[in-house]
């Protein structure tokens, strides 16, 4: 594939209050996932495997956690000294407020425009940071080439009864030609509903045209939302993604989708179906399982020391589970310590939580107990 065919815009603007307290001070995409990854890794890996070397990141608030993770983007091959790179645009929320308050009619999308021009790409892929998936972007591009459309939208088929009708999720119907049906129209009888994964491929020129229209219409929003708004005015192909897909929009979905990985089929679908998922590696020591430990139906990253019992749970990096502790149905993010004899059931420990010996934390399947980052827990808690 010729270089500069594609560039990528990744929008990390969405925030969900149901994710609290996990999303305090970090965008959804910076949340850890699957013992050692960050949600953004799945997008970055898909982008990297497509040979894309120019990426623009639009971040709602502070980008600290994202920058800390991506650094030079060496792991994703986006640190060439010759072309490309990762360009970050944080505090989009403030910028948006500023534009609404001082409606000067300037170009709200100037950053996008410069990025698109300098990437020297012919096509752009636009993605949204709350989805976990392993997508072959090349295949989407090929699909785009072999169909006569302006925009290709990536969707996943969801049986209507399973379609969680959350306000932020976008569904559409597909007509008999496999194109996105204008939403107001009646549709074919296919008993499927297409969930928009909010991934779009289009010509850079088309993207710029849409930006121009938005400026004229004084419509200021992230370009993913913008594409959805202007989609009815274009001919849009639909590309079906059949792999593992998760949308992380609440503590409950964060818990459920992490736990999905304990299911071998889903684990393999995400990690072993397409290209490998790339992340920043750390130099953690191998994980130690003591003689008295018991770890079953579980996943662990490196750097852990396990002396207690772990069942149907996920341990992220550098977690210590002291002897006599019992961790069940729980997710423990990195650098946590579970004291001797402590008990956890249906709990998420955010990074760096320390549990004193013997404390008992109980959530329920319907109400997961989430302990915020760096908390020192000295007494029993329930959700």
């Amino acid at each position, binding site marked *: 594939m010729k270089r500069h065919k594609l560039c990528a815009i990744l929008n990390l603007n969405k925030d969900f209050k149901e994710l609290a307290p996990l999303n305090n001070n970090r965008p959804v995409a910076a949340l850890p996932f699957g013992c050692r990854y960050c949600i953004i890794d799945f997008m970055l890996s898909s982008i990297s495997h497509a040979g894309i070397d120019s990426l623009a990141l639009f971040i709602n608030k502070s980008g600290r956690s994202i920058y800390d993770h991506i650094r030079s983007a060496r792991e994703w091959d986006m640190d060439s000294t010759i072309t490309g790179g990762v360009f970050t645009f944080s505090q989009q929320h403030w910028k948006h407020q500023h534009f609404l308050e001082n409606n000067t009619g300037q170009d709200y999308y100037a950053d996008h425009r410069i990025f698109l021009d300098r990437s020297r790409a012919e096509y752009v892929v636009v993605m949204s940071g709350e989805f976990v998936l392993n997508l072959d972007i090349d295949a989407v591009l090929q699909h785009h080439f072999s169909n006569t459309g302006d925009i290709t939208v990536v969707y996943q088929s969801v049986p209507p009864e399973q379609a969680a009708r959350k306000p932020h999720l976008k569904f559409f119907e597909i007509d008999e030609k496999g194109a996105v049906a204008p939403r107001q129209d009646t549709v074919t009888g296919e008993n499927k509903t297409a969930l928009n994964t909010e991934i779009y491929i289009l010509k850079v020129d088309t993207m710029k045209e849409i930006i121009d229209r938005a400026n004229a219409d004084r419509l200021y929003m992230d370009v993913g939302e913008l594409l959805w708004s202007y989609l009815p005015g274009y001919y849009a192909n639909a590309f079906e993604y059949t792999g593992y897909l998760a949308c992380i929009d609440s503590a409950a979905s964060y818990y459920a989708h992490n736990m999905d990985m304990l299911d071998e089929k889903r684990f393999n679908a995400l990690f072993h179906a397409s290209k*490998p998922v790339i992340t920043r590696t750390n*130099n953690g020591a*191998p994980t130690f*399982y003591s003689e008295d430990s018991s770890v079953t139906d579980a996943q*662990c990253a490196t750097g852990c020391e396990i002396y207690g019992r772990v069942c149907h749970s996920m341990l992220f990096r550098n977690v210590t589970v002291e002897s006599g502790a019992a961790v069940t149905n729980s997710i423990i993010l990195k650098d946590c310590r579970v004291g001797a004899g402590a008990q956890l059931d249906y709990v998420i420990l955010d990074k760096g939580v320390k549990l004193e010996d013997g404390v008992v934390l109980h959530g329920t399947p319907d109400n997961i107990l989430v302990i915020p980052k760096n908390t020192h827990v000295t007494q029993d808690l329930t959700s």
Partner: protein
Amino acid sequence: MKTEIVAMILAGGQGTRLGKLTRETAKPAVPFGGKYRIIDFALSNCTNSGIYNVGVVTQYQPLELNEHIGNGAPWGLDRRNLGVKILQPYSSADGEKWFRGTDNAIYQNLAYIDSQNPEYVLILSGDHIYKMDYMEMLEYHKERNPALTVAVIPVPMSEASRFGIMNTDSTMRVIKFEEKPKEPKNNLASMGIYIFNWPILRRYLVEDQAKTRRFEDFGKHVIPDFLKNGENVFAYAFQGYWKDVGTIESLWEANMDFINPKHQLNIRDQNWRIYTKTIALPPQFLTKDAKVSDSMLVDGCYIAGEVYHSILSKDVKVGKDSRVDHSVVMSGVTIGKNVEIAYAIIGENAYIADNAQVIGTPGSIEVIGYGEVIGGLKDEEA
């Protein structure tokens, strides 16, 4: 540009006593401790000591080693003007120049060291497992300012005859060097770590080359000559874990010791981390049937069987009803169902088919070579 110190890691040795494990790879590239290769310890010590000028001298089967080191980024050795250089033998107008020994390897890389223009040269061996702050040794060297400082480690007197022993006076000045003495007078064993004042070593090397061309090895030729000529040589006593994993048994034993979380090396110490080239792999997956105890696992492992007192490297699969006991399993190994492995070292990418057995004993460790396939016929016949 003047440089204070250049490190030269001698990584060209074969390690013949490691048998199958070094048939196609150099000893410093032999995997250790689940996710490391032996040379990681020397390289990480350099970075952690603040030495970013590192030459790695390779010769025997260098492919895997070169691939591992790459541009040095995993150890932070890819800096703007400094970093790691792989130094391999080359031919020239004088003919082919295979390195004839540790010292000859340095002589033949005179041009590299000269280009760095150092005051001191730190000579390291790429096949030892230890953590050491070379800057402390350099401080010691600078205080006394001898021509050479040799790092030594006290070994039990009963084993002293297996090592190169430095006989010192009360100030740690080296009086005599004895290679594997029958009746050792001292228990300070050379660790093969030297700090030379570069101008002095350089003079010796160049003069020898002009005259007798006798120098090959530091222990056999250079150190005795230094002492004979009355050069100041000091011993620097190192306290801590140091292991030469030169044989199958010692490699296995060092790995088994390494499992202990209270191990003297303290691999989890954030202030002296051991770096290695890693690729991101999915987490360790322990199924409902898994039983793992007193063991170490790394990323990409999939365990549906039982693992006791063993180290499993990345991407190792252990099938149902299989049992791995007191063993070292290197990366990419697939272990089928109902397999029994005990007291063994399984080489990278080996395939142990269903129902196979690989059983060694504590005194005689079974070794499966890289990519070897064991068993499997029965299933095909069935």
